[in-house]
């Protein structure tokens, strides 16, 4: 899609901040216009990275589930973990990635809770993997402005 989404947003932000906002200086609406400009800057960044961030997160959770199933062979969570780990994205629409991400993250919460109660060495390994994954997710979600 041309012009680029990021460029269109950037140009609009410039118009808002240099042409529109000054009309409202010191006014409540001036603050609102500035907030919308910042919101648009974040939208530009999110537009570019949204699919990448979600795809990486979903795939890493699936890999973790697959690794867990090697050890957690007979638990009520096992069938769900296995099923999720065998799936792959068939669409890169953000809504689809989000829908799958919600299922995966809910299951990850259940798995993490369970792993925290286990004392085996493999469970400690999985626990470390979960934390590493959570750390990567947290860093990936940061905006440039953070």
């Amino acid at each position: 899609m041309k012009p680029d989404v990021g460029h269109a947003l950037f140009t609009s932000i410039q118009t808002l901040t240099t042409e529109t906002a000054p009309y409202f200086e010191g006014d409540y609406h001036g603050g609102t216009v500035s907030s919308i400009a910042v919101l648009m800057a974040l939208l530009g960044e999110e537009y570019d990275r949204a699919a990448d961030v979600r795809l990486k997160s979903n795939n890493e959770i699936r890999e973790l589930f697959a690794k867990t199933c090697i050890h957690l062979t007979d638990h009520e969570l096992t069938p769900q973990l296995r099923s999720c780990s065998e799936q792959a994205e068939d669409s890169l629409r953000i809504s689809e990635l989000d829908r799958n991400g919600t299922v995966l993250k809910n299951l990850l919460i259940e798995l993490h809770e369970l792993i925290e109660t286990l004392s085996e060495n493999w469970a400690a390994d999985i626990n470390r993997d979960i934390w590493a994954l959570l750390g990567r997710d947290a860093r990936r979600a940061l905006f440039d402005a953070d």
Partner: protein
Amino acid sequence: MENRLKAYLQEQITDIEIKEIRDLRRIHGGASRETYRFEMVYLDSGIEQKRGLIVRRDPVGSLIDTDRALEFVAYQSFYDTKVPVPMALILEEDEKWLDRPFFIMEEIADCESASPFGEPPYAKSAKQIGEQFWSILGQIAARDVDATDMPSVVDVPQLENCWSRELNYWEGVINDDELEPHPLLRAAIRYLRRNPPAPPEKLSIVHGDFRTGNFLYDDRGNIKAILDWEMAHIGDPHEDLGWAMNELWSYKNPQVPCGLIDSELAISIWEQSSGISFNEETFRWWKLFNTVKGLSIWISSAKEYQDGKNQDPILALSSWICTSSHTEILFRQLEEAGATR
């Protein structure tokens, strides 16, 4: 709105004649209520006078769901003490006057508040403002809870339940409002429950949102008013320290929380002013808790915005950028606490 305010104030204040409500305009003043400033022009014994006032009206949707009576009583609890607050004048619960409940308080003129984001705002006044800031927080902690009306509007927890009351409340907010699952946040909550803090020495009034952006100061570097008491409650005084020292409003320098003075000096001023001993372990728990609380607030703001109850772009902004910042801060805090090993 001017005419409705005039009619309301005239009914409330019968010994003066209100001539006019002038220069009414909405201002940014905390995300939980709509805030307007105006000038009330009136005749007192035949002499024309004017007074700057603030009206805080309940919104349709907001960042934080709070009771306006609580905020009103919190202001009253510190009026005429070493904690500077505007005089809270009238609380009105009847929706017939301005469509929604509201309260009116005096305006503190010729002051500014700083944004908690961007560049550190205080420049040469940072030391002077910082010393006042941490001393005032100590005074809030030192205030005798029973000498105020706060126990009539909020729960009074047992000393040993201060932490669980707060954690339960904010976990409840997450349960009610989250639009997507948050595995890191849930892990943090489990960690906090497994590692509770020691009970506080005493119960204190907790401001609940004591940070840069929520106080007014003049151009001589004097703090003139502590604002935004909508999350005030009774609890552990370390809670406010943990919130005020949160990295999110430390301008990327956690050693200088709120962009004011070094954290060690801040703590020593707070100890002296409050008469309460600083407990490092307890403080760490509340610091971590406050990052969880921050995330709960951003989650709640996302819900309000998505549901269309409140379309203020600040809600979308805070739910994006504050969520991402606070999530990363939360991870590092858990790492430092040894939770991720």
